[in-house]
């Protein structure tokens, strides 16, 4: 079933890479393909967007979407590689409203800009915060060193 679905996806969309691990179908794609693919997935019972993750791979930033279908009982993991200096990706809010805060969180901590998001503000950190803490090259100017406290 997963293989069939994999084939369908490969036929319909330009997919850079796709593998099946356990019950996950991991799909790597370019960001232009993301929104049509998401729409297709949501029409095919992938209505559960579990998680949006931003990962800093030093050379590039990757955004990962975990989708689960309670009908088909397997995961589709979408991965989009983005440029480090200006990461932009279209928002999936219209497809899955739950993405609203998940995207805001990813923007807040990883600095990925979701184009078309209705309200892209920082969510966990204060508005005045500088930098994106989960990036590997993030340095906190105000960091307190251990041992200074006493």
């Amino acid at each position, binding site marked *: 079933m997963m293989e069939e679905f994999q084939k369908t996806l490969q036929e319909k969309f330009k997919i850079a890479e796709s593998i099946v691990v356990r019950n996950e179908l991991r799909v790597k794609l370019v960001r232009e393909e993301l929104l049509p693919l998401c729409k297709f997935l949501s029409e095919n019972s992938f209505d559960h967007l*579990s998680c949006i993750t931003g990962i800093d791979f030093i050379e590039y930033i990757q955004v990962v979407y975990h989708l689960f279908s309670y009908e088909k009982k397997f995961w589709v993991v979408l991965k989009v590689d983005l440029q480090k200096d200006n990461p932009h990706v279209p928002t999936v809010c219209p497809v899955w409203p739950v993405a609203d805060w998940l995207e805001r969180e990813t923007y807040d901590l990883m600095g990925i800009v979701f184009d078309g998001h209705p309200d892209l503000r920082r969510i966990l*950190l204060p508005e005045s915060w500088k930098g994106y803490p989960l990036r590997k090259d993030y340095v906190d100017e105000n960091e307190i060193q251990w041992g200074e406290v006493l």
Partner: protein
Amino acid sequence: MILNMGPQHPSTHGVLRLKLTIDADTITRVVPYMGYIHRGLEKLAENRRYEQFTPHPDRLDYISAMSWNGLYCQTIEKALDLHLPERVEYIRVICFELQRIANHLMFFAAYTLDLGQTTMFIYPFQEREWILDLFEQISGQRLTYNYFRIGGVSRDVPRDWPEKVSRFLDHMEKRMKVYHNMVEENEIFLARTKGIGVMKREEALRLGMLGPPLRASGACRDVRRDEPYSIYERLDFDIPILEEGDSFARYEIRMLEIYESIKIVRQALTQLPDEKIPDGHDLIKQPVKVPECEVYCRNELPKGEGAFYLISTGERPEGRLATEGGRRPYRLKIKSPAFVNLWFLDPLTRGHHIADIIPINSSLDLIFGEVDR
């Protein structure tokens, strides 16, 4: 008028700030602001070895620390492809379900307290205290247990512990009647919660609600059944579903889940195998070294579906960003159910009175250690 509620407000369950836009007594918009106890646990995880990070997931949802701790250990075990001894799996399931009962009792206490029923704050606490005692006997702590280890538990349960648990379950079943009388037979309580903050099935599914609130709306989604982990496949239990989707249903679904949890623990206790299991001293001697992989592991936590997404790059990056040859995660994403459910405060409260924000907020069962991470 704009009314600022929190972060220091008695009923925002921790530190949540709500910016309410109100028209006379009607709420037109709610904007939550959180992050007051953001501790950067995801960044913290990148700087800790796998075995060092085990105490930290406890601090996510300190009301159900056992569940988060177990989920973290399961994630690493999935990445390592470890198979646990049977007894460990059973102990874990017993702890998960006891923790679920404790969490729901805490929810219940806070919920009724928020509605002004101060007495109902202390009645469920008796039973919760009992569960804490049981956990204290096995783990040595009362709130943040840090009981599970990668590949096992920190120490085997005492000989008489299963019997104590089953005695507690008998007591619990009796006490449920009292709660029923105090709350469900109370017309004032019903008047405050019935029809308040209604979210029907289709909308809840479309918007992506999680956990007990979703099941109170009529959607049958439970990770324990849909993607069984640990030994849940072998156990016989039902997923309670309610149709109404209002604040009262969100209360009732948890009471029904307590009954199911009691059922699960009973079964697990009877099937609990007797074997020697490694304890923390044995487990910690073997350093955890995760090869290059990525793992997404999710559990049905008491507050909904929670997950860890672990990226391990094995030995790859070196220098300042080194992961000590796979001993530290490259990235550990925490997906918390309360964070998702908090989003629903705005759609649920629109058009209601100011006073209604209290049952709605409480019925979502939010905990801010988990929302803010």
